[in-house]
C-alpha cells in the first residue's frame, strides 16, 4: 500500500495549492472588476447600505410593495425554504391566512387574482422578486396609501419589471426592493 500512499499525499498537497489557492484567488481577483467588487452588489441610500440588489428583504408596511412570504423572515445569514409538503394541513392553514391577509389589506381584490407566489414561501427565503401579477394586485393599495395616482405606480412597476432573458427564455418578474426604492424617491 505504501507505493500508493506516498504519491497520494504528495499529489494531494500539490493539488491543494492549485485548486484551493491559485484557482479561487484568481477568480476573487477577477471578481474585483465586477459590480459590487465580487462581494455582492450593494444598494446604498445617503451613503448607507440599505440592501443587496440580489437579496429580498422584508416589506410589511401598506405603503410598500410586499415580497413573497419567507420561511426564515429574510434572514440573509440563514437561507432556507419552508420545506412544507403540498398536503400538510398546517401548511394549508398558513396559506389560507396569507390569502386572508392579502384580501384584508387590498380591498376589492378577488381571490382568483392572487398569484401563487404571493402566498407561498420561496426556496431561499430571500427571493428578491414577485411575479408581475403579484405587483399588479398591490398597485391600488400602494397608490392609495401614498396618495398618488395608480397610473404613476403602474409606470414604476413596468420600469422595474425584469423581462424574460432576451425576451425568449424564462419568466418575467418584478424586483421588490428596487420598486420600493423608486417609490420612496418619487
Amino acid at each position: 500500500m505504501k507505493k500508493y500512499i506516498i504519491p497520494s499525499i504528495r499529489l494531494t498537497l500539490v493539488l491543494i495549492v492549485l485548486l484551493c489557492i491559485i484557482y479561487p484567488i484568481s477568480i476573487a481577483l477577477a471578481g474585483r472588476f465586477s459590480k459590487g467588487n465580487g462581494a455582492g452588489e450593494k444598494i446604498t441610500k445617503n451613503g448607507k447600505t440599505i440592501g443587496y440588489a440580489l437579496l429580498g428583504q422584508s416589506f410589511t408596511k401598506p405603503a410598500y410593495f410586499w415580497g413573497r412570504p419567507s420561511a426564515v423572515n429574510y434572514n440573509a445569514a440563514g437561507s432556507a425554504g419552508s420545506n412544507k409538503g403540498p398536503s400538510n394541513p398546517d401548511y394549508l392553514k398558513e396559506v389560507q391566512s396569507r390569502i386572508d391577509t392579502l384580501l384584508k389589506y387590498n380591498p376589492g381584490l378577488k381571490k382568483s387574482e392572487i398569484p401563487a407566489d404571493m402566498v407561498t414561501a420561496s426556496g431561499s427565503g430571500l427571493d428578491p422578486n414577485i411575479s408581475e401579477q403579484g405587483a399588479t394586485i398591490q398597485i391600488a393599495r400602494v397608490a392609495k396609501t401614498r396618495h398618488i395616482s395608480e397610473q404613476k405606480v403602474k409606470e414604476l412597476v413596468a420600469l422595474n419589471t425584469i423581462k424574460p432573458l432576451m425576451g425568449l427564455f424564462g419568466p418575467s418578474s418584478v424586483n421588490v426592493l428596487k420598486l420600493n426604492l423608486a417609490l420612496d424617491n418619487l
Partner: protein
Amino acid sequence: MNTELTGIIATFLLTLVIAIPLGKYLAKVFAGEKVWTDFLKPLENLIYKLSGINIKVQMDWKQQLKALLAINVLWLVYGFFVLIFQNHLPLNPDGNPGMTPDLAFNTIISFVANCNLQHYSGESGVSYLTQQFVLMFLQFVSAATGIAAAVVFFKAFRDKTTTQLGNFWEFFVKAITRLLLPLSVIVALILTFNGTPASYDAKDQFISVQGDTVNVSRGPAAQFIAIKHLGTNGGGYFGANSAHPFENPSYLTNMVEAISQTIIPLAMVIAFGYFIRRRKLAWTIFGVMTIGLFMLLIPTITSELGGNPALAKMGISQATGAMEGKEVRFGPAATAYWSTLTTVISTGSVNGMHDSTMPLTGLWQLLAMMINGFYGGCGVGILNYFIYLIIAVFISGLMVGRTPEFLGHKVEAREIKIAALITLLSPFLILAGTAIASYVFTNHADAAWAVQPKAWLNNPGFHGFSEMLYEVTSSNANNGSGFEGLGDNNVFWNVLTGVIIFLGRFLPIIGPVAIAGLLGAKKFIPESAGTLKTDTKTFALMTLAVILVLNALSYFPALALGPLAEYFTMLK
C-alpha cells in the same frame, strides 16, 4: 409558446451542443492523442514530478483500484480532522464552530464520495477554510476520481485483450487539468460577473428600508458553485443551495448551472464510444439514457405546472404552476427541469425545495435516483449503466440460448455474480435504511439525540415517510439532495447515511471496474453471426426494459407507501 418552456428547451439543446464535442475531445485526451489543450502538458509534468509519480507505469485493474482507494482514504482522514477543528484554524471570519464527530463523519464521507449530502448549513456550519480547502477541494478530486475510474473501464475495452489499463494518476490529473479546472474557471467567471460573491469578505450587516437589522453571509462562493455543478457534486455554498440569489442570481446563471451539471456525464458516454472505437454503441447508450430522461422529465414538468390541487381549492391563481419552495426568477418549469436533471445525474443541487414539490414529482425524483444510470454522475454514471448492460446481456443470452458476450469477451459466472451483487446493493441499502429509520421513528421516538426521532419529520403522514425514503435514496445514489424538512443533523442520520454513502459510492465503482478488468483480460472472440449485438435498437430496448423492471420490482412498495399514497389522498 410560453417563455418558461422555450427556456428549458433552449437549455437542453445548448447542453447537447456543448456535450457532444466535449465527449470527442475527452476521448482524445485520455487516449493521449493530440488536442489543443496540450499546452497544459508542462503543468501536468510538474504535478507528476512534485508528486513523485511515473505515469509510464501501467496498472492492472487491481492496482488501479488500490491507487483510487488509497488516495480517497487519505482525503477522508485529512478532511475529518479539518472539519472537527475548523474553529481553531484560520479563515473563519464568521467564527463558526467546529463540527461534532458524527457530523464531520457524515460530511467528509459525503464530499469524498461526490455525494454532497449536507447535514449542516453553509452559512453557519463551516469556515471559509473548510469551504475551500476541504469541500471545494473534494468537489474537484471526487469528480476526477469518478472520471478516472471510468477511463480505466474504457481502457479495458479499447484493445482486444489486455491487462494493462493505463496509469490511474495520469487519468486523475488530466481529468482536473484538461476538464474540470478550465471549465470551472469559465463558469466561476460567468457567475461572478452576474452577481455571485467571489471575495473573502466576511459577513456584512445593514439596516433595511423598513429598519430591520440584516446580516448577510458572503464569501468565495462563485469558485465553489462552478465545480459543484461541473463535478456533479451539488453541495451548496449557502444553505438554500442554488435557490439562493447569491448562488444563482438570474435565469441566465440558472441556465449556465443547469448546463454545467449535465455536460460531463453526457460527454463521458460519447467519449466511451469514441475511445473504444464503437461509436454506434455509445449513441445507442446515449439514446436509452435520453429516453429515460424524458420519461422522468415530462411527467415532472406536467405535475409541477399543474400546481398544488390543495391551493387550487382555495381559489387562488396558479397560472405558472406550483410555487412553494420555488423562486420567481426561475419559475416552475425551469425548477421542474432542474429537479429531474439533478436527480438523474446525481448532482443533488437544487434551485427549489424538493420537499415542497408535488407528490408525483417526488416520485419521479426518487425513481431517478433509484435508477441512477440515466447519464448519472461524473464518470460513475456510465459505470452504473454498465452494470445494467451486463445484466441485460446475461438475460438476453439466456433468452436466445447463447453464451453471453460483451464486446468480444465472454461474460461468465464471476462477472455476473459481481453485477448481481452490485444490482442488489442499492435496494438493500435503500430499503433496509428506510426500514431502520421508520422503526426508530416509531419505537424510539424519545431517544436522546440532537434531534429526537419524534421531531425528525417536517410533514405528517405519507409525506413524512417520503422524507426518510428520500434521504436514504439520495445517500445511496450519491446524489445529496434532500427533502430538507428532515431533522437530519443527529447521530442516527449522520451515521446511517454516512455508511450508506460510503458503500453506495465505492462498491459500484469497484464492481464495474473489476468486471471490465476481468473481461478485458479474456481471449478476444471475433464477432460472428452468432454474436449478440449490443449496439442495436432491439438491445437498447432490452436494456431499458431491464432497467425499468429491476427498479419497479425493487422499489414499487416503498414508493407506494410514500409519494403514491400522498398523491391519491390529495385526489379526494
